[in-house]
């Protein structure tokens, strides 16, 4: 296996991008990454696109070919592949690109992710998100994605004494980080009371506990480490990639207050990278709901089970805290255009590890971790990045 570097990153603003189509979003992000990497289009050997459900959001399947066509890569007949794993679609696309380069098959690969979610009414968009859960054994009986996470939250409160305020403080922290990110959907700080008093979605979760529906795209350019310095002075290395699965339906698990897939993926990530959790400076985790961030922090091992809530309230997960979590604002504030999310996490880590994050820069950042989740922990993809 060869070492793999990221030499270029690009991201559109996330949010309600009503004046941009899906293809424009994909191309904007892709071109930004290609310009950043300073590579020529004829150098690009493969394209991977993370996308959850363009077929249902905009009636367009075959989106990898679409992006290849409109970005000019189809002219060179570059292989273009769309990857889907619900919320983890973008992260798995990253993993496919990593395999390509690490295996020696290709030297330069572009990985992008995009989703256009706001062309549909809100309820229709939410129903598409629900399709990441088990349609036959969960959704048919009335479970929605927020409802499943509400059950997780209630159980976490019961087992560990986690408080409603601790869960809500995740949103406050991520909005604070989002306010420092010019690409974030929400760049506004919020108060704890705002989270607690906003419209109920599925008790105890309110509107401000849930990531929004978003449009957006993100992309990176990967290169074999041995050739990376030809293009950039600040390559960021992918130190390890891991992936784990779990049952599709939540009720088939022995516990719902922990995602075993995250724990397993973290074990593999540690083994492959040789980097201990205590060495990690920052993490982008999958906070599709506030409770999800607490689970992620405990399953990764930043905090013991039941202690992530208190740690969040104590500021240990803020920029400047013990580990800076979701410096981009996370899914909650940066936005969650599903297919783009896993790629945007990598874009944020690279920005931080290059020292280019401006007001939200984590000082002296050496190691950054990304955790991306499909469904209710049914697919978990993790990457560890480090300064080369």
């Amino acid at each position: 296996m060869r070492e793999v570097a990221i030499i270029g990153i690009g991201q559109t603003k996330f949010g309600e991008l009503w004046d941009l189509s899906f293809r424009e979003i994909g191309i904007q992000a892709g071109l930004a990454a290609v310009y950043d990497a300073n590579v020529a289009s004829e150098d690009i050997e493969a394209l991977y696109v993370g996308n959850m459900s363009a077929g249902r959001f905009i009636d367009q399947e075959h989106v990898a070919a679409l992006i290849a066509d409109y970005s000019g890569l189809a002219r060179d007949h570059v292989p273009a592949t769309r990857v889907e794993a619900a919320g983890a679609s973008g992260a798995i696309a990253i993993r496919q690109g990593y395999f390509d380069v690490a295996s020696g098959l290709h030297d330069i690969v572009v990985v992008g992710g995009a989703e256009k979610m706001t062309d549909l009414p809100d309820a229709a968009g939410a129903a598409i998100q629900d399709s990441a859960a088990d349609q036959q054994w969960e959704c048919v009986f009335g479970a929605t994605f927020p409802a499943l996470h509400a059950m997780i939250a209630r159980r976490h409160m019961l087992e560990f004494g986690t408080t409603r305020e601790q869960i809500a403080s995740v949103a406050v922290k991520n909005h604070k980080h989002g306010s420092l990110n010019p690409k974030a959907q929400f760049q506004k700080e919020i108060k704890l009371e705002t989270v607690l008093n906003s419209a109920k979605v599925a008790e105890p979760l309110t509107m401000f506990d849930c990531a929004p529906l978003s449009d957006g795209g993100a992309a990176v350019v990967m290169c074999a480490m041995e050739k990376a310095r030809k293009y950039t002075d600040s390559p960021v290395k992918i130190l390890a990639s891991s992936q784990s699965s779990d049952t599709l339906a939540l009720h088939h698990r022995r516990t719902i207050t922990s995602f075993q897939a995250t724990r397993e993926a973290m074990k593999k990530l540690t083994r492959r990278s040789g980097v201990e959790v205590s060495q990690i400076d920052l993490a982008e985790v999958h906070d599709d709901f506030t409770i999800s961030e607490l689970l992620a922090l405990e399953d990764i091992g930043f905090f013991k089970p039941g202690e992530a809530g208190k740690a969040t309230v104590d500021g240990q997960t803020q920029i400047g805290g013990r580990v800076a979590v979701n410096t981009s604002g996370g899914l909650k504030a940066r936005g969650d255009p599903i297919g783009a999310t896993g790629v945007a996490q990598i874009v944020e880590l690279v920005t931080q590890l290059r020292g280019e994050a401006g007001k939200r820069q984590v000082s002296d950042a050496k190691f950054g971790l990304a955790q991306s989740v499909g469904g209710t922990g049914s697919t978990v993809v993790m990457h560890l990045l480090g300064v080369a």
Partner: protein
Amino acid sequence: MDVGIVSYGAYIPRYRIAPKEIGRVWGSDGEAMGKNLMIFSKSVPSPDEDVITISVAAARSMMKRTDVNPRDIGALYVGSESHPYAVKPTGSIVAEAIEASPEITVADYEFACKAGTAAIQTCMGLVGSGMVKYGVAIGADTSQGAPGDALEYSASAGGAAFLIGSEKIIAKLNLTYSYTTDTPDFWRREGQPYPSHGGRFTGEPAYFKHMTACALGTMKKAGTKPTDYKYAIFHQPNGKFPSRVAKQLGFTDEQIKTGLLTPYIGNTYSGAVPLGLSAVLDEAKPGDRIFAIAYGSGAGADGFDIIVTNEITNYKRENAPSVKSMIDNNKFIDYATYAKYRGKIRMKEGTE
């Protein structure tokens, strides 16, 4: 030739329902919904009321306040998105009811919520060109909101009629300016009982973009600024949107207060700006300048720069009910009665 409003009349159904009561039925926090939309109650038409009866009531009030011979009315247009007939005009019935037929041109208009103001513009042209002596422009709706949908908290009923002419005008229509693009934020296809809407898309790229562009265009054309106006009326799908657009443009709460009726009667769609303008004319004095911007989804906005004349002192406003008296004369009903009145209960054939 000066063209303006010679007379006007309004009608608001008496029944009201509160957002809390709607929310009670659907398991939503209706009170919070109402607070968020700035709607405390909405008007509900009774079972024997529709756009035709509302238009007739408004037009008859309009005629009661003037000595104009109805035979001198050469045109009548009714703007609505809830005409009772898909084919067969509302306007012909209204023309008969005010004894303005048969030597008159009549048509029904539709442009979501701004068809009534489009009718005013048409009458301005016809009167200004001398093609007709008087024209009647009506905006009225019994708007539809699907049960349980966000629209159900706002969709209401009401309308107003304006007699446009060049003699004895109580308010001069200085100029009008329109801003239109193809922006599908809200629609109802043929045969569908309830409209569809683009959720949050109905805000920034639709309402706010068109309202702002039209307001700025109207003021530019008129050479005016917000402080030149005593009153301002903005299309009001809820209480929040017009308040926000007014603030963004530099108008004060004091300027929009009189013409902002949605908090009490809901969104009367094509009736909204016409009713707001009627409420302003109910209290306006000579020399008062009025700014009005109507919005119709789909999307477009019509702007008006209006100056009240001395003639309003001779005008017999008291011959017909004021908007305020109709807002105050209300009776609250529960959701079951509302469902019955709005035909939302499935009946046995032949018993409706």
